């Protein structure tokens, strides 16, 4: 699995961090997404797919 995030589309809602805190974080100064792990292990895949599916800005892209 390979993840990319689009900072311009990110609206800082934080839903990805609530679902997969080991993969996503938010910048302290504006709440925009930080990708902690672009190629997470299998244990995170379900959470990452869920985070991508519910992102309100459609800012998370997952390729498998």
């Amino acid at each position: 699995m390979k993840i990319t995030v689009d900072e311009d589309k990110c609206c800082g809602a934080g839903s990805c961090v609530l679902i997969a805190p080991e993969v996503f974080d938010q910048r302290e100064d504006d709440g925009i997404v930080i990708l902690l792990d672009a190629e997470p292990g299998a244990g995170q895949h379900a959470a990452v797919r869920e985070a991508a599916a519910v992102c309100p800005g459609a800012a998370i892209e997952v390729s498998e």
Partner: protein
Amino acid sequence: MSVNEQVLSYPIPAEAPLEPPAEWAELRGGCPVAHVKLPSGDAARLITRYEDVKQVLADPRFTRQLTAPDAARLSADGGGVFNSDVAQIIPDSGDGHLHWRRLVGKWFTAKRMAAMRPRMAEIADSLIDDLVERGAPGDLRAGLGFPLPVYVICDMLGVPAEDRERFSYWSDTLLNLTRYGKEEIEAAQAEFFQYMSDLIAAKRAEPGDDLLSELLAAGGPDEGGLEDLQIIVTGMALLVAGHETTANMIGKMVSMLLADRARWEALLADPSLVRTAVEETLRLDANSGFGLPRYLPVEAEIGGETLPKGTTVICSMAAANRDESAFEDAASMDLTRSPNPHLAFGAGAHSCLGQSLARTELQVVLEVLLRRLPTLELAVPVAELERVEGLAVGGLRTVPVRW
């Protein structure tokens, strides 16, 4: 006459407190861009399909400029929060909006909200202590649902929670559709504005450890901060948004989960379902309120129809959230549903800034209730729950429970 031919009055009344009006499914099926008449008498178009609502909310051509001269007024008495000039003080699009959003949004990150969990649980515990002490049956709305989010947002903003009765009234008038008259609304808004202005002045003189003090500390627009007027309006907006919506949702969430006690039992057996259960109640909330209005300053196409410039569009996220083309078995509650890309918080650049706060509050309240009151049940039949009418945010008047 079918829904295709008539002009529906909007909001569409529902017969049962937790169930949607039958018209939603008909509209999604045959009339996805319906003609509706608002409480003001003005005309608008109602969007009910998932893909259409999602597209409108994320499309910058559908603006929030509900003060445009040819925009529909939501209510006869000025339209409350959406039509208010005050709403235009916070930039609604472009770089200005992005700047505001990021400046304020950093206070609502998931990590900050997670750090507030112990404090939220403490507040919930103490409110439940009081509820238990007063004895069953009790009103979960007045005893827990309403005060908890108010305490939390007051903490964050640095606003005294003792004034919550006043906030509650000011917020109701701002969210008014049909409940209050023009004079009453104007007087309440003026009082609220004065209250927040005084508070900002006091914080400038003596800063605290809170969001409003930090916004002031960021300096004026030249230094990357906001104008004082924008800070005042931001404070008002966060106070209203931060308490009315989640406060009502707590009562609705618990009612939906107790309406079929097998749901409550499932959560007791496996509390790890709390997160997905909260999302599912957000998705199925049939009483979420007015929806989100948008104004079209240009012609645009939606749902196969071309809407002329000047059209006001109402997005029903609650109807969209029950769209079979987006959710399998959309009408049934599945506490394990995942992913659950519901639109309860909107979508796109304007999606709810406080959604991590709301989600965290709802999760914490549910966790604490399951732990403290495992025998919780509704003290009246579901059909006797009563909706709050006339406000932009939907809720239940009371949520009588016993344990």
